[in-house]
């Protein structure tokens, strides 16, 4: 019984590892590298600051709320998202930087 549960747990972990993807989004020239992105539940977005100035990626939308805080040039920060939702990701400093995010299976 214990063995079965253990194997089940390992399989579940592997399934998660296989399915959860990491999407890269670059910030350069005060713009995101994409204007819209659709990801799967539990995926992560890696935000790379490829600019010469700092950025502050965040979302105040209900389904995608987060705040990466100040991100210096040359740094990267990952943000894991939930099961579902949709919203807008912005830079708190530069209002021209916007991208749509959809999380769905």
């Amino acid at each position, binding site marked *: 019984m214990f063995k079965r549960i253990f194997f089940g747990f390992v399989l579940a972990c592997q399934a998660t590892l296989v399915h959860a993807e990491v999407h890269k989004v670059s910030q350069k020239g*005060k713009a995101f590298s994409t204007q819209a992105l659709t990801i799967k539940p539990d995926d992560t977005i890696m935000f790379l600051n490829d600019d010469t100035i*700092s950025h*502050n990626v965040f979302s105040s939308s209900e389904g995608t709320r987060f705040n990466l*805080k*100040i991100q*210096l040039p040359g740094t990267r920060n990952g943000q894991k998202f939930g099961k579902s939702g949709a919203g807008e990701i912005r830079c708190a*400093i*530069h*209002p021209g930087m916007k991208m749509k995010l959809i999380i769905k299976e």
Partner: protein
Amino acid sequence: MSGIRLVLRVLLFLSPGIAMAESQTEVQRYMQLYMRSNAIPYPEDNSYSVAREKLGHLLFFDPRLSASDWISCASCHNPGFSWGDGLPKARGHGMKTLPRRTPTLLDSAWMASFFWDGRAATLEEQALLPIQAMGEMALSLSEMVGKLTRIKGYNVLFEKAYPREGITEKTVAKAIATYERVASVSTEAPFDRWIKGDTQAISSAARRGFVLFNTKAACSQCHSGWRFTDDSFHDIGVRGDDKGRGALFPDIEVNQFAFKTPTLRNVAWRAPYMHDGSETTLVDVIELYNVGGREKRASLSTLVRPLNLTEQDRKDLLEFLGTLSSPVRKTEIPMLPR
């Protein structure tokens, strides 16, 4: 550091004449970033028409859009003061002093957001807020629509501008926004003539100032492009308790004490400076940046740091900023319908 920036930085250490002669190609390439945009952008649901501009012109100058019948949009956004009021802080209903300085409308058609804290996303949205604000024009929108509807001339003009839409909050906002988009476009300044190829349009000191602006003084990190702003929000170290955009986003540290980067068009004619008029002259503004901000809070922009500008650097920057001034577009005080 990009090749162009490296070359510009090296130029600072060369004599101005040689620098400009030897680096013409590089500087010209950099100058491309400041070429003016000509076509005014309009939103899909409020395209341009002469009737709309004319109606907006009347509404902009009409003090009956205030509870006192005495304050119009133009009271604070006076074209004679480069679409500002020249005061450290604006004055509103009952001559009460408001917490912030009147922002200029110059080139407002291209702005990414409105007010010092960027709380309005469009000119249409912006136009209605000071009318309703109790400290400013203090008129409810229903009273505004009522007052305008009772003025016979306006009924005809609204029908021409927005057929079958009537006099509503929306059509008032749309007309004012249309006028503002057109009237506030800055005219060609000496800097623009220099960018276009008139080598004598600005002095050698101003040309040195332009290089400094883009390199050592780092002004162009935010005051970029032909409008001299990227509309970004920063705490630049102005003293005071006003949290600016932080009041809208209390959880975002970089937004605390942060205000919108204003255009530098006509900046030499628009003293005093900052969101609260706390810097009296441009010399004071340059000093604020030179010391890396007057108050160093956790929210201070990473771009604001001591600059070590020499006396000559400051003079050159000042000379350069003076080349961004030009008279506003010719605008008339219109005859208002009764």
